[in-house]
């Protein structure tokens, strides 16, 4: 029994640090998702309300509901991505289904005063879509992907035997690299130095052919529970509790090849694969107000608290190295260094705070739908991307854990910034048929970027509402400009790929009033 308890204690008290700064913006920088009506007006629903998307933007908007509603949405996207890596262009296409909000709104009128009403809503949505492929290739005579393994091994400041171990301290990177001799110690004068095999090619002034294919899947989902109301006059309020659910998978394939015809220059090629998944759930809250200073005018303010998420990462990598002098191939899987199983790490991550200010002008807020004419609306959103934080989930984190997470959070503060997102849109209504247009711009979250980084949406749509049903159809064109740094080296400049993604999205919403 004592033996079992001791083993269990070892299992539960193991180290848990395992994150990188790029994970921070994954859960904070994404275009607005919503119903077809919301997306058609650029996502500018903050002060308008009366749409189930209000659950996830400004919960006070649910306070406009005085009738019950059930709705479901979905869409399809045709994605085209163009990358530029060291002067070489590459195109990639991908199609995918998108999941948009679905849920219920139940209007709860007060028993003795009909003017004041309350409403409850439950909805689920995909906040961010991670389905993507980034593919680039090009010649590089400046640095090698493998040098990060050499730097890591140097930084560990430990022996080769200590890394090549069934419970290794660098099981996915330095250990496979050492095992397959992609990095090794070599004599340099009187010193023994750590060198990566592709460096022989670079030292000779020749270039490496590099190629990366990174495929990501999954999404950030959220369940929202909202209670909202109004005073029957000018003020609406709403409180929402959200349960974000993370389901992310990343598969990276990176290859490097010797481009020379020389078969005795130490290195021929390597192929590195890295698979990791992140799963978990968390909790957040959204508070919102909408004020109507006079008829037809609506002003909104919403605050989204950070999402506190308990996440679990699972990882596996493999490396195939072909060397010369003599020609020989070596293979290694990270399973060799992780007791034959995928590695698992648990941690806490919080997403940044959001503040949304919004305003709209509604032409004719009257009950008779034949007299309702339309609206124009605008949202401006501030997202403090540098506010993402990582923490250990251990009750008593080790000094190493604390030091790493402190350094990681400082890097997040240093390389990211708060950004501004702007959303504009409008609708024209003709009795049962509606026409809409919208625009959205999402600024860069990076303090320093080698290429443009922003997202832009342009959208238009139609709606039909009659006999207790409503159907909305939207076309949205998304342009996403970003960059990818495939590896970072401490003593060399970063190489990067510029990315421009264009996506044609068709979104449909059907709903019923009851």
């Amino acid at each position, binding site marked *: 029994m004592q033996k079992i308890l001791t*083993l*269990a204690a*070892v299992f539960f008290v*193991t*180290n848990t640090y*395992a994150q*990188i700064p790029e994970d921070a913006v994954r859960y904070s920088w994404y275009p607005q998702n919503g119903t077809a009506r919301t997306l058609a007006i650029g996502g500018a629903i903050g002060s308008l309300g*009366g749409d189930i998307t209000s659950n996830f933007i400004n919960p006070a908007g649910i306070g*406009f*509901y*005085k*009738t019950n*509603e*059930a709705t479901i949405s979905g869409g399809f996207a045709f994605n085209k991505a163009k990358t530029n890596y060291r*002067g070489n262009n590459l195109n990639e296409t991908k199609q995918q289904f998108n999941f948009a909000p679905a849920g219920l709104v139940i209007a709860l*009128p007060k028993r*003795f005063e009909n*003017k004041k009403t309350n409403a409850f809503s439950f909805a689920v949505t995909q906040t961010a879509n991670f389905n993507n492929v980034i593919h680039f290739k090009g010649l*590089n*005579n*400046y640095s090698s992907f493998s040098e990060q393994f050499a*730097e890591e091994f*140097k*930084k560990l400041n*430990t022996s080769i*035997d*200590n890394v*090549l*171990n*069934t419970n290794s301290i660098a*099981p*996915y990177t330095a250990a496979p690299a*050492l*095992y397959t*001799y992609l990095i090794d110690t070599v004599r340099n004068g009187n*010193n023994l*130095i*750590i060198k990566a095999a592709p460096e022989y090619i670079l030292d000779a*002034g020749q270039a490496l052919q590099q190629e990366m294919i990174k495929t990501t899947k999954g999404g950030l989902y959220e369940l929202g529970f909202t209670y909202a109301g109004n005073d029957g006059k000018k003020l609406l309020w709403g409180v929402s509790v959200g349960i974000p659910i993370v389901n992310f998978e990343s598969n990276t394939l990176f290859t490097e090849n010797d481009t020379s015809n020389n078969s005795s220059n130490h290195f021929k090629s390597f192929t590195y694969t890295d698979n990791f998944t992140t799963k978990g759930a968390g909790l957040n809250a959204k508070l919102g107000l909408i004020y109507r200073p006079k008829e037809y005018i609506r002003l909104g303010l919403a605050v989204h608290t950070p999402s506190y998420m308990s996440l679990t*990462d*699972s990882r596996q990598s493999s490396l195939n190295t072909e060397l010369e002098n003599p020609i*020989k191939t*070596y293979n290694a899987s990270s399973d060799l260094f*992780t*007791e034959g*199983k995928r590695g698992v*790490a648990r941690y806490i991550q919080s997403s940044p705070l959001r503040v949304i200010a919004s305003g709209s002008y509604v032409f004719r807020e009257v009950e*008779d739908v034949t007299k309702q004419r339309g609206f124009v609306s605008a949202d401006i959103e501030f997202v403090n991307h540098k506010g993402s934080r990582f923490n250990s989930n251990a009750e008593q984190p080790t000094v*190493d854990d604390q*030091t790493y997470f*402190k350094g990681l959070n400082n*890097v997040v503060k240093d390389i990211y910034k708060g950004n501004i997102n702007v959303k504009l849109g409008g609708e024209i209504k003709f009795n049962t048929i509606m026409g809409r247009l919208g625009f959205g711009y999402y600024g860069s979250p990076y303090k320093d970027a080698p290429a443009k980084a922003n997202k832009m949406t342009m959208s238009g749509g139609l709606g039909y*509402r*009659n*006999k*207790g049903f409503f159907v909305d159809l939207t076309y949205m064109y998304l342009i996403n400009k970003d960059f990818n740094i495939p590896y*970072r080296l401490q003593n*060399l*400049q970063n190489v*990067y790929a510029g990315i421009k993604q264009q996506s044609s999205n068709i979104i449909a919403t059907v709903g019923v009033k009851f």
Partner: protein
Amino acid sequence: MKNILLLCSIVFFASCSAVYKSGQTPDDLYYSKPKVVVENTDKYERLDNVYEERQIRMAAYDYRWRTLDDRYDYNYSYNPYAYGYNYGYYYNPYYYSYPVYGQSAVFVNPKNTTIRKTNLASYSNTVSGYTPSKSSNSSRTISVRGYNNSNNQTYRNNTYDTRTYNENRSYTPSTNNSNSGGNSGAPASTGSSVPRPPRGQ
């Protein structure tokens, strides 16, 4: 399963829409009329009577609700699968004094938890090591590393001279295996050795 869900959705949507099949369909975004509430005018109805009637109906429907009735000081319910010292337990052929699943088994499944740690110093020139000082803002002035996106220049050769292999990549493993991180030596691994395949000569 998908077909069943689809069918349920169609039935649900069809039944719900009946309310606004005739007349206008409200649009809450603009304005809609609150629902009319029919108040119960019998304000003197005793709530405890309602409660009692409900309790009787529930007890008639399912024997387990009878146990909620605290007006009786004995438990007349009979459940042959119940564990513990209930009245009449010694007549129960299934009686066993301990819950069958009471003693939870402890499963041990040790895993390697070292994943996706990165060299944070590679993100900027000034954030070096793992311990940037939070208090000294001046030492954390942002100076993010530059970018290289061309094969036409000879940055590498220039950089090579300055970075000097001997200092930066020398293999001098620390004998100190304390668990202090940074550059003072990684902690000793607890697993067994994985020998490298022989390297061709």
